[in-house]
């Protein structure tokens, strides 16, 4: 036990310091569960999935890169690749932009109002995605779509939301934007609040008008946050499953598939687990690249 006397005399009581040293060993024990989880339930399955992807359908023998070759020759696969990129890039762009705009709008509101509407705006993100996707499914449902009804009322034409490749893609992207924008909003709102008011005032005195203040103060101060959120969202959006699965199941004719849903289709529904594994693994290098940029960004920010 530590005593004032021991502090004063400079000689710490035996018990405390030696326990402190053993604290170091305790640390290893404390991270062990995490370590075990990461190694056992993430690294190992990952490695196993690579191994799986190199087997034949019956999983009896090793066939090398045959599954990958088959996929690359398969037109459907390229549909999936293209759609995944398209889906991710478009959705993330809109989510970030709308999120920033919404954050700026909310930031202008007085405290009480801001808190309430910020909370309301977060509901899409808080609601389980599979369930809200079901809601959107009903919104887009061909015969009874509310949107189509509105369009028709205003003199437009009903759109085949889920049955036409183009519109089906639009539906999935819109649903993703609906789901993800609140995340960006909440991040950028916090970011906006961390910008010192005096910077804006200095800019005002320097003669900057509102748009110029946005360009010369807001954007530069948020740039790091924007980079990080965009990268994170890219990773998560790329790996999306729920929305496409519920809305279109990848159809019509495989045009809305993402890597995750196609892997599910090939691996579990069609029963070709190794090939499904190969599909899913295609995601990894792309996610890795995005992660690399994030880490580099964070590292740069630390200096």
């Amino acid at each position, binding site marked *: 036990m530590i005593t004032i006397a021991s502090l004063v005399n400079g000689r710490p009581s035996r018990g405390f310091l030696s326990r402190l040293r053993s604290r170091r060993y305790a640390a290893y024990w404390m991270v062990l569960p995490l370590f075990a989880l990461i190694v056992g339930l993430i690294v190992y399955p990952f490695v196993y999935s690579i191994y799986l992807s190199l087997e034949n359908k019956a999983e009896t023998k090793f066939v090398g890169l045959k599954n990958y070759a088959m996929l690359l020759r398969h037109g459907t696969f390229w549909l999936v690749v293209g759609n995944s990129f398209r889906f991710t890039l478009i959705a993330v762009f809109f989510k970030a932009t709308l999120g920033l705009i919404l954050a700026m709008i909310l930031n202008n509101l007085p405290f009480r109002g801001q808190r309430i509407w910020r909370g309301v705006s*977060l509901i899409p993100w808080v609601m389980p995605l599979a369930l809200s996707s079901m809601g959107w499914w009903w919104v887009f449902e061909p015969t009874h779509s509310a949107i189509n009804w509105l369009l028709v009322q205003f003199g437009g034409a009903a759109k085949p939301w889920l049955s036409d490749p183009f519109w089906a893609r639009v539906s999935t992207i819109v649903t993703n934007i609906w789901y993800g924008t*609140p995340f960006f909003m909440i991040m950028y709102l916090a970011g906006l609040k961390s910008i010192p008011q005096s910077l804006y005032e200095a800019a005002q005195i320097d003669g900057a008008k509102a748009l110029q203040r946005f360009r010369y103060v807001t954007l530069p101060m948020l740039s790091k946050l924007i980079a990080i959120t965009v990268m994170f969202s890219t*990773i998560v959006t790329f790996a999306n499953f729920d929305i496409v699965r519920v809305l279109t199941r990848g159809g019509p004719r495989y045009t809305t598939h993402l890597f995750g849903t196609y892997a599910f289709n090939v691996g579990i529904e069609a029963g070709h687990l190794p090939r499904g594994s190969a599909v899913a693994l295609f995601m990894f290098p792309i996610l890795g690249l995005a992660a690399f940029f994030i880490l580099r960004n964070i590292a740069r920010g630390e200096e």
Partner: protein
Amino acid sequence: MTGSLAARQKRKVRLSYLALVPFLVFFLFPLYWMLITSFKTDHEITSLKGIPLLIQSAPTLAHYKMILFKTEFVTWFWNSLLIAVVVTVLTMAIAILAAYAISRLTFLGSRYFGVGVFCTYLVPPALLFIPFYKVVGILGLLNTKWCLLFLYPTLTVPFCTWILIGYFAAIPRALDEAAFVDGATYIQMLTKVFLPVASPGLIAATMFAFTVSWAQFLYPLAYIYKTSEMMLTNGIYTTLIRGDVYFWGELMGGALLASVPVVILFAFLMDYYVAGLTRGTIR
């Protein structure tokens, strides 16, 4: 006299509220649509007459009754609750220990753990579910809810550890030291000083673990086929569509009911939720 600055300020606020409206419509419309559908009669849902944006004939509770009494909704609810709670407890146990060690006790490789935790994001469920299929099968847990106890933590633990590291690191060491000088043992310091001060972070992490577990769809869908073992998400999705017939009223009602616990949790603890998200990234 003055006026210009004040008037401009008021106008800015008014315009902001105006600009907020389209966003709110966008965010809330699907929920509204789900809500009224769940109260409309089947006849009204399928009819193409009138204004679908309103409930035109008398609202009905038939769909909710059907969900609650004629399907295994209640079973799914308890399944989801059970799994979510157990996973949350497991997650917090692992995450608190690890986050404390990483943020407070410098040891060999502690820095790499932070990076390592982040890298688990690169192996999302959409990738892992395939090898897990085999693993779960081998363990004989296919088609049971218990397999989820192993799988959900892969999602929740890294994220919660990440959040907690942020919170723990922000607590000044001087606080621990003050506790020692005041005569606390290490355990007392942890339980009476450190963890209480970190409680917003603990609450936020707990909320995330619970919410993520509750909302999971891919894993249950991939591994569970017996309806009595299903979670709310895949239960509603798979059983409320019989062949070509979509029970929209039940689907919407079910989806809303299933979302209620999480949204209520959020409503009460919103500030912790928000703080948990934004804490780590804002420097």
